[in-house]
């Protein structure tokens, strides 16, 4: 169960090798979490992530999960929920893709969309229904500022996150009053292996800062969290910038 500060005792991570997810899991283990499930494609990296968290004293198990295979989501995640209540589900998988390459290769653009959007839709719905049966739990979905307004530089990724963000907001409203808390997290540029080699954007942040923001959001039962918080204002301004101007902005 979550305690008075919204801190979970059990955590299911979808996308078990995500750096933000692992930073969050480390933070939660330092607080209250004793059981962690890492869902992801079986790989040495997934096992290594599990070992790292195990060293912090948690009971960590891995479960085979592939975002691109929605039909497997129900049995795979059903197995996890059958073992006991999950207080928090963190949806952290996603791929950035390569914008220039993906524009030329529609199939790889579709792969970005399928992973980040349709895969997430399926995994989120499966998790939401299990949480609803429990009558409690937080569903934390990693969106991105890229979804707030699509940019020339990464609109394939951005559009997939825009879809996920809108979907999650709607789901949060649908689940209002069911005991399930849905929180959308919109980080800006996060320094991680996903963004390695990319030019850093202003207000860049770290996986640890995202973890801290998630902890605060859980305590406040927030529905939307920006990391860093200043991005809320920045994106609000950018959102209202005229197209002709926005197109020319060096972002």
């Amino acid at each position, binding site marked *: 169960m979550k*305690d008075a*500060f919204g801190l979970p005792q059990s955590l299911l991570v979808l996308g078990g090798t995500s750096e933000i997810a692992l930073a969050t899991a480390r933070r939660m283990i330092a607080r209250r979490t004793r059981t962690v499930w890492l869902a992801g494609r079986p790989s040495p990296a997934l096992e290594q992530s599990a070992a790292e968290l195990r060293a912090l004293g948690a009971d960590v198990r891995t479960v085979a999960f592939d975002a691109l295979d929605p039909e497997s989501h129900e049995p795979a995640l059903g197995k996890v929920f059958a073992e006991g209540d999950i207080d928090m589900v963190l949806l952290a998988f996603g791929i950035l893709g390569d914008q220039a390459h993906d524009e030329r290769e529609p199939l790889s653009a579709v792969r970005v969309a399928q992973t980040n959007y349709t895969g997430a839709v399926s995994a989120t719905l499966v998790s939401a229904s299990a949480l609803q049966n429990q*009558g409690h739990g937080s569903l934390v979905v990693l969106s991105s500022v890229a979804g707030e307004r699509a940019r020339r530089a990464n609109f394939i990724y951005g559009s997939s996150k825009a879809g996920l963000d809108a979907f999650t907001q709607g789901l949060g409203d649908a689940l209002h009053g069911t005991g399930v808390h849905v929180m959308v997290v919109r980080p800006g540029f996060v320094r991680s292996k996903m963004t390695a080699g990319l030019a850093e954007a202003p207000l860049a942040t770290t996986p640890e800062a995202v973890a801290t923001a998630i902890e605060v959001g859980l305590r406040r039962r927030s529905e939307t969290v920006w990391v860093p918080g200043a991005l809320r204002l920045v994106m609000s301004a950018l959102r209202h910038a005229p197209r002709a101007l926005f197109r020319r902005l060096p972002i």
Partner: protein
Amino acid sequence: MPADTVSVTGWGRTAPTVARLIRPRTYEEAVAAVRGCGVRGGIPRGLGRAYGDAAQNAGGAVFDMTGLDRIHAIDVDGGTVSCDAGVSLHRLMRVLLPLGWFVPVTPGTRQVTVGGAIGADIHGKNHHVSGSFSRHVLSLELLTADGEIRTVRRDTPLFDATTGGMGLTGVILTATVQLQPVQTSLMSVDTERARDLDDLMARLAATDDHYRYSVAWVDLLARGAATGRAVLTRGDHAPLDALREGTRARRDPLAFRPSRLPPAPAHLPEGLLNRRTVACFNELWYRRAPRARTGELQKLSTFFHPLDGVPHWNRIYGRGGFVQYQFVVGHGQEETLRRIVRRISEHRCPSFLAVLKRFGDADPGWLSFPLPGWTLALDIPAALPGLGALLDTLDEDVAAAGGRVYLAKDSRLRPESLAAMYPRLDAFRSLRAELDPRGVFVSDLARRLAL
């Protein structure tokens, strides 16, 4: 039987979860509710004054027992009452005071049920004399997981597991309680101030035995030499001859007239209670108390239940809710108490409801809270930065000193800390495993702490 799916919290308004709220009106309905409560089980709930998650059950059933509220029999000569568990102490006072009897133990609110009083094995300002509520329970009827109703007598394992058992052994349906005789409905109260924590402890230790009721309000925002300054209020039921002839009180000495203010508004902004406002309140509260005053006549409700005058006072903490922390450490652990008070004071917790009391002998309930020693209770807004970590360190201090925290108030303890605090936890678990193998009775508290 009506059943609504509702969001449920404790009095602290943290960690809401959703459950089917079922309100049985007869014993048969209660039996049917327990038999049909489904895989996520059920938990009895009274008036919802437990601060944390004790009377919540996410995804399962919560039995609202306030529908079973008949008083069956009052023995006016022997001073006992038999009633349903859903009867509130408020109602008992209304009915019993005109007959010259008072409840044996009352907490800081009248708005608790008899069932809740037994389940949490509550204590009051008279603990050093009268022990906890269960000491005065002669017998009770318990609806257990198999759907049977059992009569549970004192000095049996099931009685000791149920008193303080947080509703996890079954649903208490009725109880017979020994009462306290009184001549009037007024209290004769002595008030004095203590300039710091040591002064306070010295006064409590020296003269508590002279009073049936004793408690001290502590200013936890006072720093430096004034750390732990306090106002002691101690007293007893006023005898008839303490009331002047010819007054209204003398003509009707057993009248029960609790005062009542309008309820707190439903929506109050966050942060109304911050360090500044609470420090102001504490300063005023301390200054307005007389240095020493004896024999003041007060209404029962003023002495015991000042907060009951403001219905829904828990709303003043805003949407974020609050955490209540109450612990006890044994006699001889005064140094631990001093250290904890210092820590709380250094952390600047804006707490205006901090109360220190000396407990008397413990009662046999396996998960009953009181131990002979010192107990401190305080309210803190849940949004206070660093609060979780602070309370975790206090838990460690309390457990190392052989003390414990109160489950009826808890909303954040770690399961690891629990076994050290409650040495009879294993006996409780094995009794439950035998009595309730399918785990019919379960609450959010039980899930969180693996009770």
